[in-house]
């Protein structure tokens, strides 16, 4: 595919040209520990004091902070029909609908809610609660729970249709049909502790980050194992490219992107980029339309690289604190980053939005 957005060279520094703006859109000083953006560009933050703020970039003064957790959110994601889902270390899970209505999915309890996922395709929500996964509909009605797995659930992910869930735990991943939670799951086994999970947008692969600082993948069809190693830390952030071909990952100073075309990434080195050696990538976010991916690093930098093309551009200089979230607006025109110190940065990338529109027209 020819380049369909403004070519960038490694020496281009977007940050000089387009300084990211710090937006004051939440009521008071607090650290931000998670960021999510829904399909309608509503933004959700989890603060380190337990509150969850929601609002829009178009009206930054109108962000509202809602009661979230007695402790803090451990996992935040966009809701199935917009809005947000948050699970916390108070055992509570809340659904904040697009109109701001707050529904308690789970009351406070003993088991922490470590993992959340939602599927716009099916309208379902999945939570990892202690050693079980539970499924809810878009209105917040409980649909069922799995039997306990080998350890606390560390990750949940829906397949593209939102009909199946992948549940990560010690010893592998269990796949359940959301409509058949009482049934026996299909186990994708691999020894060790799996700490995060993603299901490829084409539905063919399930990939986990492991405690052993590797990625482990399975081809769902035939359960062929794939091991991808070389990480300096656990891989906690994944992002699939818009064309569904590449999986970009955090966990090392270079952003790695594995090529899942055909039978999968085995035998092919990953595409890598990154401009500094000492700081790890903490979050990755693939552009929603173009074959590029942004990454946030421990030192507060943001860089952007292009799948299969050497080099990267700097989108934001170092500083602002440890990143806690990175996300694109739906049109791909703005990139958002939050930090542990409570900073919220917006990088304006209008030219990418224009390029994405042009690409669409040409198609």
């Amino acid at each position, binding site marked *: 595919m020819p380049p369909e957005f403004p070519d960038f060279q490694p020496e281009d520094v977007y940050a000089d040209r387009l300084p990211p703006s710090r937006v004051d859109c939440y009521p008071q000083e607090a650290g931000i520990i998670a960021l999510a953006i829904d399909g309608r560009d509503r933004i959700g933050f989890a603060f380190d004091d337990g509150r969850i703020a929601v609002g829009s970039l178009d009206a930054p003064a109108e962000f509202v902070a809602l009661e979230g957790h007695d402790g803090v959110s451990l996992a935040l994601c966009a809701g199935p029909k917009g809005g947000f889902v948050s699970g916390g270390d108070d055992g509570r899970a809340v659904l904040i609908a697009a109109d701001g209505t707050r529904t308690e999915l789970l009351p406070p309890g003993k088991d922490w809610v470590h993992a959340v996922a939602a599927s716009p395709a099916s309208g379902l929500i999945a939570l990892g609660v202690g050693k079980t996964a539970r499924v809810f509909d878009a209105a917040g009605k409980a649909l069922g729970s799995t039997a306990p797995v080998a*350890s606390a659930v560390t990750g949940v992910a829906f397949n593209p249709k939102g009909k199946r869930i992948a549940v990560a735990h010690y010893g592998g991943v269990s796949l359940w049909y959301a409509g058949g939670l009482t049934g026996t799951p299909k186990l994708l086994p691999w020894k060790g502790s799996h700490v995060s999970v993603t299901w490829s947008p084409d539905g063919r692969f399930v990939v986990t980050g492991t405690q052993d600082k590797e990625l482990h993948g399975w081809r769902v069809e035939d359960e062929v194992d794939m091991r991808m190693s070389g990480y300096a830390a656990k891989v906690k952030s994944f992002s699939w490219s818009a064309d569904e071909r590449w999986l970009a990952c955090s966990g090392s100073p270079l952003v790695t992107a594995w090529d899942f075309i055909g039978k999968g990434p085995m035998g092919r080195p990953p595409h890598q980029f990154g401009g500094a050696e000492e700081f790890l990538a903490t979050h990755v976010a693939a552009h929603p339309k173009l074959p590029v991916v942004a990454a946030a690093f421990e030192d507060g930098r943001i860089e952007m690289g292009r799948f299969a093309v050497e080099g990267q551009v700097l989108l934001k200089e170092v500083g602002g604190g440890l990143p806690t979230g990175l996300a694109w607006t739906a049109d791909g025109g703005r990139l958002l980053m939050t930090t542990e110190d409570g900073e919220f940065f917006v990088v304006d990338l209008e030219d990418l939005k224009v390029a994405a529109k042009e690409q669409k027209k040409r198609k």
Partner: protein
Amino acid sequence: MNQVPVTVLTGYLGAGKTTLLNRILTEQHGKRYAVVVNEFGEIGIDNDLVVETDEEVFEMNNGCICCTVRGDLIRILTGLMRRKGKFDAILIETTGLADPAPVAQTFFVDEDVQAKAKLDAVVTVVDALNIEARLKDSKEAREQIAFADVILLNKTDLVAPADLDRIEGIIRGINKAAEIHRTTNSQVPLDRVLDRGAFDLDRILAIEPDFLEGGHVHSHNEDITSISFTQIDPLDENKFNRWISNLLQTKGQDILRSKGILSFANQDDQFVFQGVHMLLDGDYRRPWAPDDPRISRIVFIGRNLDVAALKAGFEACRAA
């Protein structure tokens, strides 16, 4: 970045662990604790944050066969760290039957835990009345003593003074690097069990070295013993690193803990290291005091320790 100190409380069933925990939590010390327990049980806590957990142990796939880790602690510690500034320290109470190795190893293998928390001390409460019987029938009771940085020899009111000396001798035989406090009702000044990081080094510095006398020094079967060596000559850092990594790779299943304060050639700072089975961590900590003799000290606690080989290996690390 400030790492939150974590104190691990171990002790066989009925030794007085929960009494100690309650004492720590109720005494006025101005500190806020997050407490990780296996069961809420009899802990009476109003202001502190209590997390209940199952001991979820798993084996790492890092080629180190005895490397078991508490995955639940990784999740809970990293989760707790999201509550910035809500507590000053963390206490972890283990079950009476727990092997302390996975807890200790957790602090060596996980980068998120290492970034934000540090293992301050393993505190083991020992029931003076029953410990001799426990040491005979329980591997865990022996390991809990072997892993300790601080030992409370508790329930001393139930045991005659002469017996106490004998029991303390047995404990010393297993672990000569730990501080031992004789207590009743787990009553101990809290600065003896909390915030021990720095004091631990002084304890190592105070250990008397073992001298090789006679022929039979090879410990046998499941007995856990400890041995220590000193060296006046400065050590070569590379030689030492090669030796200790190879030693722990090959004998790490038997060596439960290793600790040392070392004087490397051409270095003004003390090098401090500690190991748990095959895992090792060390760095330059503080300068040698001008009038202190620069003596390297090393302690091994474990089974089947080949004292002669260890001594020869340590001596071979001398700088040329």
